[in-house]
């Protein structure tokens, strides 16, 4: 079910909300939470019921392993080495991580591996052509983090219902933010969150309306031009190529941040605060700054569970650089099983290495130039992220630096791209509202109503496009 579908907006979300609080009102706390897990699984199964057993098995397996790790960690601390533990925590953690990664590898990367093996060895293994389970990368990463923290003794013994809610809670289930058990579990367990809070509902509605507008009115418009340039046009002139790449740059931002806004807004209706995932990333003045603003929860995961375990910046400069590069190549691979994704990750890793070296050498740059370089680098790197084939990427990139100055682009398209740039650079982002005291002023009420109204019209007028990040 899409957040921007009428079924979600007019049936699923209001019904879930009212029934959840009705059950809580009747003091049926377990029933209410169970209901929320049930509707979340229903939401997940809406695309394809075949996905359901996988997420259930994954959830159950990680809960059992996590709890065992948690107990072992406690026992190990208590008894030091006096008590012999049959299976060490490290082995259990390794098994847990291997099983999770194997699941991801099997469903997401097997065909990519077979394809490359065929290419290298000349043999012809048949691809598995498996149906990629929805959001598998998200719930796998989320649960790996849980296992690692259980091993470190940083988790408590949660009950299964709260754990199931942590994994399946529908606002964040499909495309994040990648939530951490430390920020979610206390919220699910808190009795303070079991009553309807109109301030949260108002804020949730306001943020949801902004996200919906970003997605269906802005991102879907840019998507048409990006698709035309990348997938349909055989050749592009210079202006068309720039319009194509910028359209995708803005599409991705408005689509993904719009989705996150909707997730945060929907979660707030249930008194759950999801972490911030975007903070005006295109205002970044360097690539490190960009990754502190773009998909913040993924950056946090990669830092805590890949970069730091690899040694982070505690070893030699060379190791720091290679750790950075490896982390971002893994990040690229997480986004998709393809060489273009890996190359995109590599480009970002290299940019971070160069930025670190530049900073270590104490060089400075004018802010406007720093922004120009960062923005254009990100824009160009997205070409590899978006292109289905290398040829498409080369087509767009080559045309961006061609001398074909023919002007054939629609004036309105140019105007909207310029408007998009102005919005991402000069407007405050929706997440800044979460930091301030929220009043729901008359202006905000009118904005909420207008955004909802225009978005509902736009949904009907356009085809409901799936969010880009569902594929990852």
């Amino acid at each position, binding site marked *: 079910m899409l957040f921007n579908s009428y079924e979600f907006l007019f049936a699923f979300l209001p019904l879930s909300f009212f029934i959840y609080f009705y059950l809580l009102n009747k003091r049926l706390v377990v029933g209410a939470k169970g209901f929320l897990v049930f509707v979340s699984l229903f939401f997940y199964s809406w695309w394809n019921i075949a996905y359901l057993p996988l997420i259930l098995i994954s959830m159950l397996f990680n809960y059992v392993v996590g709890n065992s790790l948690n107990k072992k960690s406690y026992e190990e601390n208590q008894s030091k080495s006096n008590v012999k533990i049959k299976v060490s925590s490290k082995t259990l953690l390794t098994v847990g991580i291997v099983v999770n990664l194997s699941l991801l590898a099997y469903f997401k990367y097997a065909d990519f591996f077979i394809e490359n093996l065929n290419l290298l060895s000349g043999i012809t293994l048949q691809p598995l052509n498996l149906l990629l389970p929805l959001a598998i990368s998200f719930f796998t990463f989320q649960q790996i983090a849980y296992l690692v923290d259980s091993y470190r003794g940083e988790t408590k013994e949660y009950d299964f219902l709260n754990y199931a809610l942590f994994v399946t809670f529908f606002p964040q289930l499909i495309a994040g933010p990648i939530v951490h058990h430390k920020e979610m579990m206390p919220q699910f367990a808190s009795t303070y969150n079991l009553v309807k809070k109109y301030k949260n509902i108002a804020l949730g509605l306001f943020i949801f309306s902004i996200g919906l507008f970003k997605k269906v009115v802005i991102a879907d418009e840019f998507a048409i031009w990006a698709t035309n340039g990348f997938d349909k046009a055989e050749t592009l002139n210079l202006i068309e190529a720039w319009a194509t790449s910028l359209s995708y740059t803005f599409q991705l931002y408005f689509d993904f941040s719009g989705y996150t806004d909707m997730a945060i807004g929907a979660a707030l209706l249930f008194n759950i605060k999801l972490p911030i995932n975007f903070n005006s990333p295109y205002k970044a003045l360097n690539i490190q700054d960009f990754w502190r603003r773009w998909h913040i929860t993924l950056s946090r995961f990669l830092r805590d569970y890949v970069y730091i375990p690899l040694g982070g910046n505690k070893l030699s400069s060379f190791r720091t650089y290679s750790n950075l590069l490896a982390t971002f190549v893994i990040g690229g691979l997480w986004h998709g099983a393809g060489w273009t994704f890996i190359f995109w990750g590599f480009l970002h890793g290299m940019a971070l290495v160069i930025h670190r070296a530049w900073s270590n050498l104490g060089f400075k740059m004018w802010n406007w130039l720093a922004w120009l370089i960062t923005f254009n680098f990100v824009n160009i790197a997205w070409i590899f992220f978006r292109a289905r084939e290398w040829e498409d990427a080369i087509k767009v990139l080559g045309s961006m630096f061609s001398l074909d100055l023919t002007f054939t682009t629609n004036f309105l398209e140019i105007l909207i791209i310029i408007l998009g740039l102005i919005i991402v650079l000069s407007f405050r982002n929706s997440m800044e509202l979460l930091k301030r005291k929220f009043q*729901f002023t*008359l202006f905000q009420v009118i904005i909420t*109503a207008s955004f909802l109204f225009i978005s509902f019209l736009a949904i*009907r007028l356009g085809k409901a496009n799936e969010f880009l990040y569902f594929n990852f």
Partner: protein
Amino acid sequence: MNFYILTFKRKIFLSLFLVLLGFILLDIALHIQANRMTTKNSYIIGDKNSQSNFFELNKFYNKDIIFVGSSRTYYHISTNIFKKNDIDIFNFGMSGNQFEDYPDAINTIIKYNPQKVIVSLSVNRLYENLNKVKNPTLIDLKYYFDTDKILFLDGLLSYIKSFHTFFTYSEAIFYRITSFYNKFNINQQTNVSSIIKNNDNIENYADCEVYDIKKNPDGNSNLKCRNGDGILVGNNIKEEFINKSIELKNLNKNTISYIINGIINPLLEKNIEVTIILEPIFKANYNYDIKEIINKFQNIKIVDLTQFYIPKEKWADNGHLNNFGRHYYSKYLIELYKNNLL
């Protein structure tokens, strides 16, 4: 009242009320605009109510023939060619509609006492289940109820939705937005209307007074006439489809019952002659038993034109004739009518 003393709860209701108010105002505006666009000289193409209102506003009593059908009637029948042959007809073809929509049209038509009603449909549909209707009316629903309860429920939902006028006109609005966007294209595609105006040769394309010309996404031009006809100009045939023979077996009971009860019987009860044309299909390769079809429909004439050959250049696309094909087809129907075969 100071806005800041309103509680969050009231502000939430206010914002949702504003959304609802927006929709109500939009619906009222669209309703008024739709009424304004339905006059004695024009109606909204594809809108059943608008077409019926157009028919009623003109009080088309005692016509020789009324053609009822889908876009394949709307674009295929030339009122003026019939007129030149002293046959007074009305083209009740409805673009975007299918035979499941016809009961409503029939209900309007029977009030005006035509001599003959000719209903066009594709032969394959007689073997298929009933389809959902996009915008059913209460009349359509009545026959749905008698024939298929599931479709009735689905139709009822669509009927309720149709009270939200925006739903009905959203496609038209979308095309207007697209058309507005295309005005900003640097390389404007050649506009047929300008060709027509510049060359002053409208009669080559239309035999009626044209009041609207649009470019379809496939490149064909779509002309609307004040007398209720539509004309497609262009030739955009796609021949790559597999031309394998399709066996049509077992007439669908529900479909036949719907046609008999919803379309044929109301006309026969008013002593109006009924003919069913099995309409021409480009490169039709259906195998079926026409006798079985004739046996199912008593007291009416069946004219099977499924395999009627119309040259490729007379088709606008795989489903519709262009201006040349329309002329050719109308002439052929006139011959049939004069020979009492229609």
